[in-house]
């Protein structure tokens, strides 16, 4: 395997509504930021890969338009995943492993504000049995939360405390949307959005964009004084039908974590893409991360959850902390789909 590292990361302010800028204009400063960090522009990358979904924009091939923000002339080698940008990074990482290229630009963006997000996300369910019911994202997460309660694994108070910790962590993250939180007792007076999920246990609807640069070997060392080396990277998918899954666990995360080698050495901190409060524990237990691991120092997806973007931000936040010397070994995780259906796990190390 070739040594590959995350060497640059940028994100815009994650906002409830970005109305004054188009997708291209929202993304453009983020791309310029990683260009400035690396001294590279479009033509210097072996590959460009993006993650987004046309369902958010309500426009076919919207991802082609946003290539404008990269400056794709003369023509560049590029690809797109209709998933979180973390999977775009996976595609780029595989391409580097083939030896074809040495560096890649990855970006992701999502504006949820123009549409009804819960309805939009219902369209990702299977078209025969679930999508016609318009089972929305919060309702499905509530189904999962209820099974966690029924199994006696966690309580509503646990989720309130998780929400408080994440949003308190976000106080040191100027890009996050929700920074700071009332205490758990106050939060437990919130109304239910969908029983048993109260407002604080749900992620904020967010518009945002992010970009990272990955590079192999010497190229990575040239671009960063302390690259965040990708020591393990794997993604797995649970069964499509919710009815055949045990929603209190995440088998795909457990498998991805094992393949990525999470348990091989101690973990200093983890960035987990857990949009709903009850999902953090599911992920932590699935990966075997104990209480010694600092979870979501950036505030996680409960503080900002731009669709198709929040997973890539987990990778970028973890890498930035490694590069800054805040830890030597980190886990970054991204999810996609309903009830943690698809999970990507990445192990990052400073040496």
């Amino acid at each position, binding site marked *: 395997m070739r040594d590959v590292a995350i060497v640059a990361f940028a994100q815009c302010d994650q906002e409830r509504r970005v*109305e*004054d*800028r188009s997708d*291209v204009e929202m993304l453009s400063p983020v791309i310029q930021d990683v260009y400035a960090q690396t001294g590279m522009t*479009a033509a210097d990358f072996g590959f460009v890969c993006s993650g987004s979904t046309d369902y958010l924009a309500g426009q076919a091939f919207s991802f082609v338009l946003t290539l*404008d923000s990269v*400056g794709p002339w003369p023509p560049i080698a590029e690809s797109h995943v209709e998933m979180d940008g973390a999977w775009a990074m996976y595609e780029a990482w595989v391409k580097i492993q083939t030896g074809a290229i040495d560096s890649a630009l990855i970006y992701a963006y999502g504006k949820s504000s123009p549409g009804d997000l819960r309805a939009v996300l219902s369209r990702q369910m299977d078209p025969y049995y679930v999508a016609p019911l318009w089972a929305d994202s919060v309702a499905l997460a509530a189904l999962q939360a209820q099974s966690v309660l029924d199994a006696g694994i966690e309580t509503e108070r646990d989720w309130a405390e998780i929400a408080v910790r994440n949003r308190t962590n976000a106080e040191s993250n100027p890009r996050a949307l929700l920074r700071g939180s009332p205490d758990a007792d106050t939060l437990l007076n919130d109304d239910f959005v969908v029983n048993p999920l109260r407002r604080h246990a749900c992620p904020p609807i967010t518009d945002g964009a992010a970009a990272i640069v990955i590079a192999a070997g010497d190229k990575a060392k040239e671009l960063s004084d302390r690259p965040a080396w990708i020591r393990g990277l794997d993604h797995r998918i649970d069964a499509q039908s919710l009815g055949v899954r045990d929603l209190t666990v995440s088998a795909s995360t457990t498998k991805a974590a094992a393949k990525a080698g999470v348990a091989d050495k101690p973990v200093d901190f983890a960035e987990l893409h857990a949009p709903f409060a009850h999902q953090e524990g599911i992920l932590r237990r699935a990966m075997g991360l104990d209480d010694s691991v600092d979870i979501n120092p950036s505030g996680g997806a409960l503080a900002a959850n731009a669709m198709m973007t929040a997973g890539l931000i987990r990778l970028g936040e973890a890498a930035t902390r490694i590069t800054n010397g805040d830890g030597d070994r980190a886990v970054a995780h991204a999810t996609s789909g309903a009830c943690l259906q698809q999970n990507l796990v990445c192990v990052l190390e400073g040496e």
Partner: protein
Amino acid sequence: MTELTLPASIADAEPVRSIRTPARLDYIYTAPLATTEFLTNIEQKRIIGSRCPKCSKVYVPIRGVCPTDAVPMTERVEVADTGVVTTFCVVNVQFYGQAVEVPYVCATVLLDGADMGLFGMVAGMPAADVRMGLRVKAKWADEPSKSLASIDYWEPTGEPDAEYDTYKHYL
């Protein structure tokens, strides 16, 4: 089709051969600042573009970022409401929801002073006579609004056709 053997409890049920699951999503778009500037000017019968500081090309409508160089475009340029038909298509096929009677002509119009064609309809002449290089001008709506619908269509100016060499790089 394979015949199914149903459990006794639902033996009388009518087999489902197909399902229809209509879906509809509604979106509310807000024009970004750059687009807003363009639309506000269109209402005043002014067509504004943006010039790239790097390649100097003028894009109409205004865009915030040059699609070639990926740099912000802050300079504004007013272009003419006259131009050249670079490419066109005569529509002879009727389809559901069509607003105009066939035949009609869709065209890309390269406005004088712009480096990017604008999509529109050419009318005021027989469809069969529309051609590449045709000089046209905007037929403004009686009551312009913050919309491209402020230009009803593009009509011939009667000037001689533009030489191919003058617009060949814009095809």
